[in-house]
């Protein structure tokens, strides 16, 4: 979108016909224009050191009984995964992570879309509101989490506000009650990142040609039908990006939980990431922890792959 829009015109139209169509841009006919291959080496070294090698190691350690200290690792096959399956707390964490990720994805995008439609209209404050709604997304999650921890306290601002508007019956121990703690955490993530979804939808909305929209209005289509038949199909790419980003972010959820509840009360807000952290650095069960990391990896790959496949099929259909 915005950043990719600058495409200079091509000078060389007389390219040889056998050229690979994927080679957009221009020719490689000048024999000397071969960017040195070793340019990729420094990047490759850093990438291999901090991502590739440790990830492969992780994939291997998940099948061992490594305790993080002793250099000896025994291959134990699927034992860690069996233990994981039999561990009710781990199963709960998987469930919690999936519920949180789905809830965040749905609500954050719904709110983000409404905000985008609102600030895309001809209201006078739209530029100020855009900057304003996106602002929480750049704030350190640790800070927003502490802020909300205070707001959620039994004598905190949320309860005070409910009291002030006469809704005393709704006062809760927002983070102390294991039935609602997870939803309280999810609400914070949504508050923080709804503006992020908004700016991506907004970029999509700006690609809707104004003439088509106005033509539909003149033909008598109301706002709802205009949204459904004119805007919605054009928003498909933005929706794909938004859903992918929020589901992956939701699956990795850590900061907000760690600051607000550390997984409590009673493990009700433990996510895969908090359990990974606890198992490794509080209980020294590294092999077990990495097995959970591998489970998380599989979730991310399978869910985002599935989503991408479904959405790109939709996109093709609607275009």
């Amino acid at each position, binding site marked *: 979108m915005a*950043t990719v829009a600058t495409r200079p015109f091509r000078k060389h139209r007389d390219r040889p016909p056998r050229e690979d169509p994927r080679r957009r841009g221009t020719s490689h006919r000048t024999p000397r224009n071969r960017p040195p291959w070793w340019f990729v080496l420094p*990047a490759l070294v850093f990438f291999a050191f901090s991502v590739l090698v440790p990830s492969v190691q992780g994939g291997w350690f998940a099948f061992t009984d490594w305790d993080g200290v002793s250099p000896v690792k025994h291959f134990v096959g699927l034992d860690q995964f069996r233990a994981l399956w039999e561990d009710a707390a781990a199963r709960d964490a998987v469930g919690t992570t999936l519920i949180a990720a789905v809830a965040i994805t749905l609500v954050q995008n719904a709110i983000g879309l409404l905000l985008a439609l609102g600030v895309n209209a001809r209201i006078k404050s739209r530029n100020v509101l855009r900057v304003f709604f996106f602002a929480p997304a750049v704030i350190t999650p640790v800070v927003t989490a502490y802020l909300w921890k205070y*707001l959620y306290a039994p004598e905190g601002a949320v309860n005070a506000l409910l009291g002030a508007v006469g809704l005393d019956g709704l006062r809760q121990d927002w983070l102390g009650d294991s039935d609602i703690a997870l939803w309280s955490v999810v609400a914070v993530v949504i508050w923080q990142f709804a503006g992020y979804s908004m700016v991506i939808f907004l970029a999509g909305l700006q690609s809707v040609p104004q003439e088509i929209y106005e033509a539909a209005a003149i033909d008598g289509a109301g706002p709802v039908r205009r949204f459904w038949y004119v805007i919605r199909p054009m928003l498909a790419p933005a929706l794909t990006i938004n859903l992918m980003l929020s589901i992956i972010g939701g699956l990795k959820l850590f900061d907000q939980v760690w600051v607000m509840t550390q997984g409590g009360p009673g493990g009700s807000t433990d996510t895969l990431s908090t359990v990974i952290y606890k198992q490794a650095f509080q209980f020294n069960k590294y092999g077990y922890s990495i097995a959970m990391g591998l489970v998380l990896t599989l979730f991310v790959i399978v869910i985002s792959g599935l989503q991408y496949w479904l959405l790109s099929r939709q996109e093709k259909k609607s275009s």
Partner: protein
Amino acid sequence: MNRYTWRTGVLETVMILVALVFAFPVYVLVSMALRQEGDQSSPIAPPSHPTLVNFGDAWRQAGLGAAITNSALVTAGSVVLIVGLAAMAAYPLARSTRHWSRGVFAVFMLGLLLPFQLALIPLYQTMRDLGLLGNPLALIVFYTGLQLPFSIFMYTGFLRALDSGYEEAALMDGCGPVRAFASVVFPLLRPITGTVIILNVIFVWNDFLTPLLYLSGSGRQTIPVALFGFVGQYVSQWPMVFAGLIIGIVPVLLVYFLLQKRVIQGFAGGLKG
């Protein structure tokens, strides 16, 4: 269509009300930080005797000066490396269509899918063996490796759409490939470099889990970890804690408000894919 009708007015009112709801937590953050210690009035009431003393206290108690320096160091180091290495790597990856080039590109893109929770623990062990735990250098190395795939992805996309005529002209004029890159190609990448910088600065500045692991207990913490420890220690003194939280986010908010258009554009368009 383009007139400001009564409907637009209603929408405007609704949006401003929504904005006020969004802003409520921020209002509490600021009003709390301005309170005097021991002010027991309701958390939603404005401070009765506003004071700035909490900011000074928080600055001293939390060692925020040192933490901001560390964060700035780690952020600057990582972003310089990310920009330099990603732009360099993207150049042959975008221009060459050979097998090795496509293979290497695919390997980098694999990095977009792997959650870093998987690499975190084995890398922790490696860093410990190398004696890098507690050293901000560990973070710089880690962030560089972690953020390269995404940055290379952005640079490659931009380069593929960029005319190679300029660099060819430079090569004709007897410029070596290294100089052609440094003085012709890299300057042409400026728009995308801006986006890459913004996205990485915000990511590195805000990250919490990595420094929590690699720097904990070292006294060389970055802002999120320093705030985490600070709040744990002074948990009942909310006015001072909130003043500390505000100090911690001022740098990144400053960047945001100064470059708001670029930041929003970067986030909206940068993640295309």
